[in-house]
């Protein structure tokens, strides 16, 4: 009789996906008491009350069924209206917009739809952790394009061009960026757009943090001249509307791309949950003041945390979007993981080691400022104590040597 080994049944690609390198660290966070967490990638605000109420009311009215595979028609119309209003983009709500289970599903759909075996996907790093694994699952080849603090963690066209080969097919852009808080300046976006056209690429633009931008109005990559058809625009409700747990996102794209993505979506997901779509509809209809209010608070916290990090002696790029800040911890002489672990053990503050977001994130840590001012103040006091102690140790060691 053959002995059953579950491992032998697991798909090779899945087996070969590297497990999250910082899992051990997060287990440590979960098991430590009294931690102030700057490690969470979601708003500290609860979803605005009237959005929650809209969901409750929809349940009371009996909205408990499937919706169209594309999502509720009214919600798609409001998404189209929002994209028109905000970015002057014209999308046909019937053929070009689909509601997904979070922006995450949209990323998966887009990559699965575009990538065949061996196609190269250009991924600027540091970046959100899912692009590479999904690319690998589709049989594509992730090509890392590192960005650096000297370029404000923004992708530059010059640098990107070096990585483009005849096999390049897709460029993933995610600005405002998680984990760095970087944004793409308009001029650089335009230069990148020229490359996209020159080398016949398609862009997956993950714009989930687009409403949280602190240096001016948001800009969508799809709105650049000639780029709308070549861009799969992904956005969602999680970050701007503080609706992470609802799992509602959307994708806007060329009708052919959308029809292809719809095939995968209808066979795997059917449709996003109706109650969450009801809430999203209320968010788009009546929530822009809440978004402004939350964005203003993030902005105040951003300035505060940035100034504290500089004061304690960490070199830091001033983030212009999202709710993350990505200071360099090089002066402490510690690796990202050691810094995060020792900070957690000594001062009970949780941050995410930068290398979780790619090799170019080594030497940095990601702090989320989606936390109350009281928590941020206390967290910065603790971190300052920790950093100053390390700097003193280092200078003593240097003096002895």
């Amino acid at each position, binding site marked *: 009789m053959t002995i059953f080994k579950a491992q032998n049944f697991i798909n090779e690609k899945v087996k070969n996906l590297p497990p999250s390198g910082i*899992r051990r660290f997060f287990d440590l966070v979960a098991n430590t008491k009294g931690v102030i967490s700057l490690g969470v990638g*979601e708003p500290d605000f*609860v979803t605005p009350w009237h959005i929650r109420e809209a969901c409750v009311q929809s349940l009371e009215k009996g909205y408990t069924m499937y919706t169209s595979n594309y999502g509720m028609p009214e919600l798609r119309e409001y998404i189209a209206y929002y994209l028109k209003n905000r970015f002057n983009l014209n999308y046909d709500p019937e053929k070009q917009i689909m509601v997904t289970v979070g922006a995450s599903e949209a990323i998966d759909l887009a990559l699965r739809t575009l990538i065949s075996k061996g196609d190269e996907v250009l991924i600027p790093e540091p970046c959100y*952790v899912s692009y590479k694994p999904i690319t690998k699952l589709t049989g594509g080849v992730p090509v890392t394009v590192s960005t650096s603090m000297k370029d404000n963690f923004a992708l530059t066209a010059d640098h990107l061009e070096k990585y483009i080969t005849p096999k390049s097919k897709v460029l993933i852009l995610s600005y405002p960026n998680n984990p760095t808080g970087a944004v793409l300046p308009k001029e650089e976006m335009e230069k990148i757009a020229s490359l996209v056209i020159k080398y016949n690429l398609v862009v997956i633009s993950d714009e989930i943090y687009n409403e949280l931008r602190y240096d001016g109005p948001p800009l969508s990559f799809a709105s650049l001249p000639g780029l709308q058809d070549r861009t799969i625009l992904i956005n969602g409700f999680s970050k701007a509307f503080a609706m992470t747990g609802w799992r509602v996102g959307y994708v806007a794209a060329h009708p052919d791309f959308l029809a292809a993505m719809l095939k995968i979506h209808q066979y795997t997901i059917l449709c996003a949950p109706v109650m969450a779509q009801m809430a999203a509809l209320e968010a788009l209809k009546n929530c822009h003041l809440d978004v402004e209010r939350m964005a203003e608070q993030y902005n*105040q916290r951003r*300035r*505060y945390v940035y100034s504290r990090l500089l004061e304690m002696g960490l070199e830091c790029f001033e983030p212009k979007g999202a709710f993350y800040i990505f200071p360099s911890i090089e002066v402490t002489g510690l690796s990202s993981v050691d810094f995060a672990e020792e900070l957690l053990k000594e001062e009970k503050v949780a941050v995410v080691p930068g290398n979780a977001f790619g090799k170019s994130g080594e030497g940095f840590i990601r702090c989320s400022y989606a936390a109350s001012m009281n928590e941020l103040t206390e967290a910065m006091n603790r971190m300052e104590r920790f950093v100053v102690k390390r700097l003193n140790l280092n200078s003593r060691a240097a003096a002895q040597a």
Partner: protein
Amino acid sequence: MRKKILKLLEKNAKLTAKEIAVMLALPVDRVTKEIADMEQEKIILRYQTLINWERTDEQKVSALIDVKVTPQQDVGFDDIANRIYRYDEVTSVFLISGAYDLSVLVEGKSLKEVASFVSQKLSTLEHVQSTRTHFILKKYKQDGVIFEDREADRRQVLHP
């Protein structure tokens, strides 16, 4: 700019001028000056602490009292309002529209104390026609703060 400074201070009076300056991207001396000016101009009246007394051993009873008054020539309601808000027991006085004229918040150590203040002091004032006392049984929310907020931070650890 003043509005932004005030909004921050309204929520947290302990913020320093430096912190406010950083949060609003303003020069510190500018913020310091604006705050001083607003104190001078009586825009900022005082820096207060919001306390949930129910969580202490302190006995406190408060009541909202609807007061109907006869307005007087020339001074309208102001004169009688003045006579009412001078009492230490009275913590707030509002002129309101509707069936009553003044809404008066009274605080005391016991039900008896508040009741005797109303019957002996308030209702006997000249021009006061009638009073109606509502004792406050529980405070849920005050000045924008929910006292027993059940919506704690529920974010869970999620591997990014």
